[in-house]
């Protein structure tokens, strides 16, 4: 079974479920060093994404990613809305109009997503943002999509954990100075959660995503 629009859409719906399950955890992480809305923002946003996909699923992987992007951008707000939205939008651009994804395209999509987030948010690795999870994920490699995403998810987990001891230079946690030390960045955590969910979907569906 190839990684077509339908499997990408299914993976997104599954990821929405994961976001819902971790909504309170993400709220708590953001409450500690931010404004306590990150989990609620993503829950709301992915709720709209699921509705939009239920209404009509685009017929290419790129089309699905673009729909996700436009819903997140137009419905979420906050920092996460435009940043995740841009990530999906650039990913959509990277995969183009193909019918099925390949490991190379997924790798390109992750790289493009990272590029988009950095272009918009201007954060570097070590600034204690989602970039700390997304950057190592984008460098992950794998023989098939499932392996690639598993490697990306593992890298993102490590990256998210690496934010704990940091002082933040971007985002809301930057207002706290030293007081941000000891807390994981919520956006890095949500990147790791999404990638883990995508990896699980890919593994579950047998071959690719």
């Amino acid at each position: 079974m190839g990684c077509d629009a339908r499997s990408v859409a299914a993976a997104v719906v599954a990821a929405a479920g994961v976001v819902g399950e971790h909504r309170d955890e993400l709220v708590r992480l953001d409450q500690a060093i931010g404004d306590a809305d990150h989990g609620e923002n993503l829950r709301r946003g992915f709720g709209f994404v699921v509705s939009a996909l239920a209404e009509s699923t685009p017929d290419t992987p790129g089309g699905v990613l673009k729909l996700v992007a436009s819903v997140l951008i137009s419905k979420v707000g906050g920092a996460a809305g435009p940043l995740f939205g841009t990530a999906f939008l650039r990913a959509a651009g990277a995969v183009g109009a193909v019918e099925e994804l390949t490991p190379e395209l997924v790798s390109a999509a992750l790289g493009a997503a990272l590029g988009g987030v950095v272009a918009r948010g201007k954060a570097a690795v070590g600034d204690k943002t989602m970039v700390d999870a997304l950057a190592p994920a984008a460098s992950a490699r794998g023989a098939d999509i499932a392996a690639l995403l598993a490697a990306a998810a593992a890298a993102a987990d490590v990256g998210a954990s690496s934010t704990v001891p940091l002082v933040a230079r971007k985002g809301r946690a930057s207002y706290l100075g030293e007081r941000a030390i000891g807390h994981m960045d919520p956006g890095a955590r949500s990147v790791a959660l999404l990638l883990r969910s995508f990896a699980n979907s890919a593994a579950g569906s047998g071959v690719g995503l």
Partner: protein
Amino acid sequence: MKKIINNPADVVTDALRGLAAAHPTLLRVTQDPAVVAWVGTPVAGKVAVISGGGSGHEPLHSGFVGPGMLDAACPGAVFTSPTPDQIQAAAAQVDGGAGVLLLVKNYTGDVLNFETAAEFLDNTRTVLIDDDVAVQDSSFTAGRRGVGATVLVEKIAGAAAAAGADLDTCARLAEAVVAGARSMGLALTAPTVPHVGSPSFVLPDDEVEVGIGIHGEPGRRREPLADASALVTALLEPILDDLPFTAGDQVLLFTNSMGGTPLLELYLAHGIAEELLAARGITVTRRLVGPYVTSLDMQGISFTVLRLDSALTDLWDAPVHTAALRWGV
């Protein structure tokens, strides 16, 4: 959590319904995307002034919509910047053909969402508001937050637009206010966000958070609770030293409640602040005292000091008619 709400997910929608009901002759409120516009918009040939931000800071921004101030406000979810959809819808409603001025508090989310919206709009200018001296200013960070000065920027830019100034002039005046205003706040208690249900931080009974923002984020540091004179001094000195404000300056002093502070305490703090400025030779020629830039039920105060010249003073004094600020009309 004790709140007068129905479903926490609907608080902004429900509150906007109440806002519309409360001000039927002043405001036109649309939902989905949520926009609060002055009923008189669009005004042909007038620069449209739009602001917006997360909800939970009321009366900011919706309470400042009306003639002489904002043409429209875009209320996001609680503590969440509005979406580009809202901002585009607001612009479509109020653009009178002379351009749109976007007044944006400097938070990553606000900046990005307004940026996206602006890409779809013609003839806009964006002014970033970043007056909070509690945050170190640096081009390597998110920079300073926009807090109390927002009201002053909205009033003065709105008055300029009402007086017929063009987009560049309005933007220049808004930037002048940003350049001349500094703020800092402290909290005695944390706010409780409706979709969270617990206070954003826990503060012992004998401590205050100094250098807070308006989103329930913890402050720069905790300090022992002190008397009002010490607290006021701890806020005003960094403000005055930052610009710096110096003897001979004429200023507007804005004493702001974070939401839950009794007016009795607010006026008490204001009195101390006036004495402190006078002792430094700074003349307060205009003042604003009240809960204008809030953080839900947070108890605390912030001060904003704005250096005035006669042009800014005249624009401040110009008639304004909004839900929360009204004079001359």
